[in-house]
Each structure stands twice: as C-alpha cells, then as structure tokens.
C-alpha cells in the first residue's frame, strides 16, 4: 500500500496504524500534529487510527518563524 507523507510517497506491506507510522519515521514521543486527508487526527487517536491505501498525511512541528 502507498501513503503520501508530507508530499512524499512511502510503501508499506501492511496497513499501519498512525502510531506505527510515526514509529517507523522515528517520530514517536515527538511533539507533532497530524492531518489525514485534510482532517486533524487528535494525538489521543494515533494508536487507533488505521491508515488506508492512498492516504495523504501531513505531519508538522513548530519551528522558528516571525
């Protein structure tokens, strides 16, 4: 299955949960926010959110800015 994460395509053998995806990306425990297909996924639901083929994800952090 294919996921688009921050504009880049990623392939997975099995459909991961959002929490598993974040672990794969070494983002577990980091302060991030996630939008899935245009909708915010609350942090409390990362574990139970099962991702599906074709999902588009945006994973963001706070950075320096004016």
């Amino acid at each position, binding site marked *: 299955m294919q996921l688009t*994460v*921050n*504009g*880049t395509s990623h392939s997975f053998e099995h459909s991961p949960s959002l929490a598993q995806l974040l672990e794969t*990306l*070494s*983002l577990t425990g*980091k*302060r*991030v*926010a*996630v*939008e899935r297909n*245009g909708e*915010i996924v*609350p*942090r409390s639901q990362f574990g139970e959110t099962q991702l599906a083929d074709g999902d588009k994800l*945006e*994973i*963001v*952090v*706070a*950075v*320096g*800015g*004016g």
Partner: protein
Amino acid sequence: MDNLIIAGKPYSSRLLVGTGKYKDFDETRRAVEASGAQIVTVAIRRTNIGQTAGEPSLLDALPPSQYTYLPNTAGCYSADDAIRTLRLARELLDGHDLVKLEVLGDPKTLYPNMVETLKAADVLVKDGFKVMVYTSDDPIIAKQLEEIGCVAVMPLASLIGSGMGILNPWNLQIIIDNAKVPVIVDAGVGTASDAAIAMELGCDGVLMNTAIAGAQNPVLMASAMRKAVEAGREAFLAGRMPKKLYSASPSSPTTGLIGKP
C-alpha cells in the same frame, strides 16, 4: 500596572518577537530572553522525515511553559491554507487557541492579501480561535477585522523584513484612534527608534523578528528593542510637549541676569 491585555490575559511586556532567522537555538533563546518578550511567534512546518532522534527543537530552547506561543501562518497564500495550518497548530500545542493570522499576497513584497485574510479571520473566529491578525495599514480593513472578532489588529509599519520603519504614521494613528482592541505594529521595524516611534504613536505593542535576528549583534539589539518599547510607551503615557517652530520661552529664568542696570 501598565499591562498589554490580549484576549483578557495581561502581559507586562509590549514587545512580541519572532523566532526565525537566528544562527541556532541558543542564539534564539538568548535574544528572546534579552528582549523580555512573553509572546513568541513560531511557524508550523512539515517535519523533516528522517531527522536524527534527539535533534534539538525550538520547544526545548523556549519551553511553552515559560512563553506564550503564537503560531503563525507565514508562507500561506490562501485562506484555506492558513486555516489548515492553525488547526494543526492548535492540535500541536494542546488546544492553544491564540494565533497570528497572516495571508500573503505576493512572494516578492510579502504584502498581505486582505481579501483572503478577512475570509480566514471569519472562519477562525467562528471556530473558537483568538486571532491576532496581520493587516495592511488600511483603517477600514482594520476596523472590519476587529468587527469580525479578532483580538488584536497588527498593521505593518512597512514591508516584512524591509527594516524601513514606520512609513505611514498617519494611517496608524487613524487605526489606533478607531480600535477597541490592541493595535500592534507588525513588520517593518528596523531599529530601536522605529519601535519607540510606534509606541509613542499609541500602539499597544510591537512585533518584530528580522530587526533583532538580522542585527550584527542580535542579543544586544533585543535588549535595545526592549528599552525602546518601554521608553516609547512611557513617553506616550507621559504626553509629549507640543511641537513649535520656536517658543521664545527659554528654560532658564529671564530675570536676575548680571550686567543689567
């Protein structure tokens, strides 16, 4: 106590600072500390996939427990992108709803697109955000943004990153005279005197980034800006003497001069 009150919350500092363009997070932290700012703007960006674990983050340098974060929509050119960005920011910062809305119209000048800004402000206010809004220095637009429910209007002094100072004090004066919410000059300040002039006009605060981060010595400039904002505020509250071409009223006594009959 002369506090800046935004959305009901008091702040003793009237200087708000950005956190971009610094050499590293240590310089960011030292500059923000020297500025005395309590509200710091941050940008929301895609995480760098594959970044090394344990890489320092802005949140380590400026703990959200010590500063009020003001997530911005810098780089957004449509109402939709700005709204999406701030919804992500609210989730990222555990429901924090004080935000800086800016919708840009042109990558060359970074001048705001006020049509899109008005649209986004309306949606965000209805969605429960407390919106501090970057705006052109048009008094009518500024009033409309206030009527929509924005908690502060933030007109530019001159273009973002230009350091050109306050180009139209008269428009700012009209905005200040009309506003019932805080007016904060955002963008264009180049050096300490610009910040002092903004405060002397009666602005409630000043927001800046490049003027500090782009100085040869950012930490020293941050300290200068802190003093300039405080000095300008005190001068405004004190009420300046009227300007006259000449006064014929010297400060020293006109009587008791020697050598007179």
